[in-house]
């Protein structure tokens, strides 16, 4: 019975779902990192209007469930499902990354800015060559846990019918509906997510220990 569930065809079916999970995760994490860093730098820049705007974005987005962005982008825009999912995750995760970047920038002493300025660096030059490289080191652990959150939360997009890992699992569950099969399937899904995320967490701890 369990052999029937675990036949190569079904494992390949799940692997394709894991592929979709990783595409959404990596795509949205990459975009969120770019937008989030920009917003985080804006927020760090004092009381200028764009700092206020970035702050407003972060406050609003962080206090609304990601599921709402997933539904909203899917049903209120003409984007194809997978793109809509990446956009929704980018909207949400950008706010989280902006907070992490702001925290990272705050952790760098003012003296670093002053020293670099005395050496003739421009503000952007200081940011890119002096402050961000140091801040990045402090940002690795929270960024990694954000990445884990994204990977876990991609399971939300099954709600709009995208067949990522959880979705594929639920489809299989419709075909193999006995107690041992269902429990095996849940175990397999949990173990797959766990392997990916625990591996990431381990790796993040190793990186942190090295710096």
């Amino acid at each position, binding site marked *: 019975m369990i052999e029937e569930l675990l036949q190569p065809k079904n494992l390949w079916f799940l692997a394709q779902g894991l592929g979709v999970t990783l595409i959404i995760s990596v795509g949205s994490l990459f975009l969120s990192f770019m937008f989030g860093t920009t917003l985080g730098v804006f927020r760090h820049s004092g009381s200028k209007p764009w700092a206020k705007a970035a702050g407003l974005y972060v406050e609003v987005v962080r206090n609304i469930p990601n599921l*709402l962005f997933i539904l*909203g982008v899917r049903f209120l825009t003409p984007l194809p499902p997978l793109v809509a999912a990446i956009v929704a995750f980018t909207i949400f995760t950008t706010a989280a990354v902006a907070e992490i970047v702001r925290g990272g920038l705050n952790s760098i002493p003012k003296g670093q800015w002053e020293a670099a300025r005395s050496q003739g660096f421009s503000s952007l030059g200081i940011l890119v060559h002096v402050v961000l490289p140091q801040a990045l080191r402090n940002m690795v652990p929270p960024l990694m846990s954000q990445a884990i959150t994204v990977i*876990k939360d991609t399971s939300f997009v099954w709600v709009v019918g995208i067949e990522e890992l959880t979705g594929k699992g639920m489809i299989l569950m419709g075909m193999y509906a006995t*107690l041992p099969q269902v*429990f095996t399937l849940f175990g397999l899904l*949990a173990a797959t*997510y*766990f392997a990916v995320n*625990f591996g990431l967490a381990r790796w993040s701890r190793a990186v942190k220990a090295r710096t």
Partner: protein
Amino acid sequence: MNPGPFALFKWEAAVAEWPVFAIGLGTTALVSVLALVLSLALGLAFGMAGAAKAKGLRAPARVYVEFFQNTPLVIQIFFLYNGLPYAGLVLPVLAVGVLGVGIYHGAYVAEIVRAGIAAVPLGQKEAAASQGFNAWQTMVHVVLPQTRKVVLPPLTNQAVFLIKNTSVLAMVAGGDLMYHADSWAAGNLYYGPAYVITGLLYLALCLPLSRWVRKMEKRTAVLA
């Protein structure tokens, strides 16, 4: 002509049928409060176990935290809702929400509590021991009270995450705010106002908590 997703008559319909949103909001609030209580209880127990010297206490705490922090809440909720009935255990959907969300966030609370305990200087424990406190009394009367300032901001942050995550109940027809808004919109296709109103209601629940955390963090930053 296509009236657009935010046409006025759709807003009027949403306002006229406000009890739909109110009922959902009530369920979300109820599940959030009960799940928060459960997560605090579990987090306190597993957090203390995780900070203990005995390996027999630390190991199960580690397993609990790692398992629930590294697997999706959706899988856990689906297991409670779709999986357990195969074993003859059918839980009401509200219980699925409270248990699922509570156990999941309990793992995060446990880590906060453990870190809070670790931040209390060892001398405090030694001093308590020298006064004749046993391990349990030391924990309850000396260590835990001192963790309050450290753990309260991250715990409140966790409460915000918890409230947002109760929306996963919508995926098992849980009757929460997200579910009611989405099924209302799926019925009449008035997605625009439904989602905006839902967003504002979640914002109303979460923003005060977030703002409080921000204020506390600023205060400690000034002190430090």
